[in-house]
């Protein structure tokens, strides 16, 4: 995260925090009092020079919308929910990070692996493309055939979701 750049007043979006607290999982954002429990217990922060959940929460409270949403580190969270369980203020930290990721994804900012998984679910029902050989091998392993996905039905239920437009843009 580019935390060393001084913050300019023009960068601050004062409504950003309300955007987050309106969303499922983001409601308790403003309760954070910056104790640092989330960062000190975060397994990813232990091995990353840049990933700091407490900092993401603070930047979000401050309204540094563009910095947060464009930050690569946002995608490092392992969603282990340790922070959510241990936050003394009941902030659902992992869910706030998910809310931020969702907002970034809506703008098309999303690591490729996630896009691939969405495409695969739409195509087959499964998040990974399961090779034909694997399916056939099941029989020799004594396993029943794999339940089929129903892409047509899945696409119907997902109709109208904002993120899908980013897949079409990719030409997929």
């Amino acid at each position: 995260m580019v935390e060393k750049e001084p913050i300019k007043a023009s960068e601050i979006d004062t409504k950003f925090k309300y955007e987050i607290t309106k969303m499922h999982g983001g409601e308790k954002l403003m309760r954070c009092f910056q104790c640092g429990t989330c960062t000190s217990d975060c397994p990813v922060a232990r091995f990353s020079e840049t990933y700091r959940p407490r900092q993401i929460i603070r930047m979000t409270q401050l309204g540094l919308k563009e910095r947060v949403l464009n930050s690569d580190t946002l995608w490092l969270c392992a969603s282990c929910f340790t922070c959510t369980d241990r936050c003394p203020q009941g902030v659902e930290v992992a869910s706030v990070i998910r809310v931020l990721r969702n907002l970034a994804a809506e703008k098309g900012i999303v690591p490729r692996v996630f896009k691939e998984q969405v495409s695969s679910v739409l195509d087959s029902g499964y998040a990974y493309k399961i090779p034909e050989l694997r399916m056939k091998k099941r029989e020799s392993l004594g396993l029943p055939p794999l339940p089929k996905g129903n892409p047509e039905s899945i696409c119907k239920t997902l109709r109208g979701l904002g993120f899908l437009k980013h897949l079409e843009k990719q030409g997929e």
Partner: protein
Amino acid sequence: MAENKYLIFLGCAIPYRVSAYEISSRKVLQKLGVELVEMPEFNCCGLPLDPVSHEMMLILAARNLALAEQKGLNILTLCPGCAGTLKKVNKVLKEDKALREEINRHLKEAGLEFKGTADAKHIMQVLIEDVGLEKIKDTVVKPLTTLKVAEHNGCHILRPREFIGFDDPEDPKTLKTLIEATGATCLDYMDETECCGAPSVGVSDKIALQLARDKLNHIKMVDAQAMITICPFCHIMYDTNELRIEKMFNETYGIPILHYPQLLGLAMGLSPEELAIGELRVDASKILKQIAEGEK
């Protein structure tokens, strides 16, 4: 709903690359009289898509729950991620009427409806709550008394506490209890509930592998002869990647990673072949030999 009959929900990772977990689970569940019915059709539980769109995750999870409701059966999953997601969505949609109506508007497009009448449980929960420890112990004919192992729980079957609430996330006991039912000793070690790192692999391989290495170091420190997992992703992190981690960080572990049903199956007297132990990347022959010798 019939107590020991479930729809088996395999998820995506298991059919993709973790067959040994499925094979051994089916074997031990059969021995324990748990009847499994295949899902009529399948879609991802939704968890991997949550970072992209929470709504998409909710719809996908609710779709699976609605299919289970139609079948009149509860879901049994082998993956903590699937179990955690289906449980969480079930609870949220049951409690939040407005959200339920919104999700049902989507499901209706495909002729489905979420009512909240089916439950989802992870295999560990089915074993401890529905099958019961006594019954499990009754099937143990070859107690693994000489074996000392370490457990590794999956994050999503423990946390967030508010939604899962099945075991204590800070001091989980279920997997330990299940391991001890096989006769093996389950060792305590540092940072037992720490994440394996799998969800970060696609974004930073290096951080994820450092996390996995951390755990392997901790269980090596207490001289565990094997690690026991109950999650396909954790298993990939430790088993598939163990040799890579050894090379990358100049370490030696040689610690086999077994799926819990493989451990239980060995104690039930099933053969290593029946339990697909040969599919493990890290050689388990040392402990198999020890188990065989222990019987003599």
